[in-house]
C-alpha cells in the first residue's frame, strides 16, 4: 500500500497546486516532482504568469462606468405591463439627467475621491474652455512664471507638457480652488480653436498610473495619479484621440 506522499503526481494535481487547491499532504510530493522535472516546472511557471496576467488585464474592467440600464431601479420587462416599463424607463431617464455627472461615475469600491476629482476637472473644463476673452490667467508667453507659480501653490513642481506633436499649443493656465484646496488648470488649443485642459491637484492617495476614463455628455476625461498629483486630461474628443494625448502627457511628465 502506498501512503499519500508516495502516489505519483498527476497533471490535475499540478494545476490544483497552482490554484491553491492541493491538499496539504501532497505538497511535498508536488515540490519534489517539479524539482525533478524542470521542463514541467517551466511549463507551470508559464501558467502562473498567465494567471497573473489574466487578472492584471481584466480586473480593471470593474471600474468602467455602468450605463443607466445596468443601474437600479432595473426594468422588469419580463413581468411588468408595457406602460409600466415605459414609465419606469422615463423615470430612470429623468433621474439620470438630474443626477448629472456623478451618476456616470465609477461604481467601483474605493473610488469616491477619484470620482469627485474628475467631476471637478470636468466642471472646470466646461467653465473655462468656453471662455472667449479670458480663458487663462497667465498666458503661454509667460510659461516660466506660470509653471513656477502654479507649482508653488500646489506644493509640487509642475511642467507644461509639449503637445505640439498632437497639434495642440499651450494657451496658458490658471489657479483654481476645489474642495480639497488649490488646483491648477493648463489649457491647450489646436489650430481650429478646439481646447483641451489638463487639471492637477495634490493628492495623498497612492500613485495609480492606470488611466481611468469618464465621460459626461460630450466631455471625456482620462485621469490618473502620479508623483503626488492627481491628473485629469479633459476634452470634447473621441476616446482614442484623447487617450493618445493622455499617453503623451504622461510620458512628458515622466521624462
Amino acid at each position, binding site marked *: 500500500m502506498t501512503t499519500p506522499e508516495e502516489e505519483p503526481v498527476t497533471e490535475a494535481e499540478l494545476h490544483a497546486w497552482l*490554484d491553491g487547491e492541493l491538499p496539504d499532504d501532497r505538497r511535498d510530493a508536488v515540490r519534489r516532482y517539479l524539482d525533478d522535472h524542470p521542463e514541467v516546472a517551466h511549463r507551470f511557471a508559464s501558467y502562473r504568469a*498567465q494567471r497573473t496576467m489574466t487578472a492584471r488585464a481584466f480586473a480593471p474592467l470593474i471600474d468602467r462606468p455602468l450605463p443607466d440600464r445596468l443601474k437600479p431601479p432595473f426594468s422588469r420587462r*419580463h413581468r411588468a405591463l408595457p406602460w409600466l416599463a415605459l414609465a419606469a424607463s422615463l423615470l430612470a431617464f429623468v433621474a439620470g439627467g438630474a443626477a448629472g455627472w456623478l451618476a456616470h461615475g465609477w461604481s467601483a469600491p474605493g473610488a469616491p475621491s477619484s470620482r469627485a476629482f474628475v467631476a471637478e476637472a470636468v466642471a472646470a473644463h466646461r467653465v473655462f474652455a468656453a471662455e472667449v476673452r479670458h480663458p487663462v490667467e497667465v498666458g503661454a508667453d509667460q510659461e516660466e512664471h506660470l509653471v513656477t507659480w502654479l507649482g508653488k501653490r500646489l506644493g509640487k513642481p509642475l511642467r507644461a507638457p509639449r503637445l505640439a506633436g498632437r497639434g495642440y499649443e499651450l494657451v496658458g493656465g490658471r489657479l483654481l480652488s476645489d474642495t480639497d484646496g488649490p488646483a491648477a488648470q493648463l489649457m491647450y488649443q489646436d489650430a481650429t480653436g478646439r481646447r483641451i485642459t489638463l487639471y492637477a491637484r495634490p493628492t495623498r492617495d497612492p500613485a495609480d498610473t492606470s488611466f481611468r476614463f469618464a465621460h459626461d455628455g460630450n466631455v471625456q476625461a482620462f485621469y490618473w495619479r502620479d508623483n503626488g498629483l492627481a491628473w485629469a486630461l479633459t476634452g470634447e474628443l473621441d476616446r482614442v484621440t484623447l487617450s493618445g494625448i493622455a*499617453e503623451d502627457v504622461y510620458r512628458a511628465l515622466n521624462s
Partner: protein
Amino acid sequence: MPAADDIDDRAIAAHVPRLRRYAAALVGNLADADDLVQDCVEKALANRHALRDPSRLGGWLLSILHNLHVSGIRWRRRRGHETPVEDFADDVALSTPPADRGAVRDFVRAFGQLSEEHRRILLLTGVEGLSYREVAEVLEVPIGTVMSRLARARERLRALLEGGEERPLRRIK
C-alpha cells in the same frame, strides 16, 4: 430563513460591476456585455424566488449569465456593434499601468482567440477567484471536467502566447 424578498435591486446591483467585468472579458466588448448583463439581471429578478439561499446570490447570477451566454438569445443577434478583438485589446490595455500596456495588448489578443469554453474557465478561476467547486456549480459540470478543461485552456493559451499571434491556422477553431 431569509425571505426571497431579500433579493432586491440593491442586492443585485452590488454584483453588477463584477458580472459586467466577467461578461466583457468573455465576449470581448462592452456593448454585448451590457446586453448580456441586462438580460441576466432581468431574468434573476423574474426568478428570484427560486434562490433559496441569498448568500449564494453571486454564484447564482453567474449561472444565469452563463446559461444566457450559452443559449445566446440576444447579444449574438446584434448588428453593427461587433468590436474587433484588437480594439478591445487596446481598450483594456489603456486601463493598465503604462509599462504593462504592450504585454496586456498581446495577451488580450491571444486570449480572444481561445474558445468560449476556455475563456470562461480561465476568467472564473483567474479573475473572479472562484474555487474549482464554485466553478463546477456555475458551469453545472463535474469538478473533474473543470480541472481537465482548465488544463487544456492553459496549454492552449500558452501555445498562442509563445507561438506569437501570426498563426492563421490557430485562429480557426
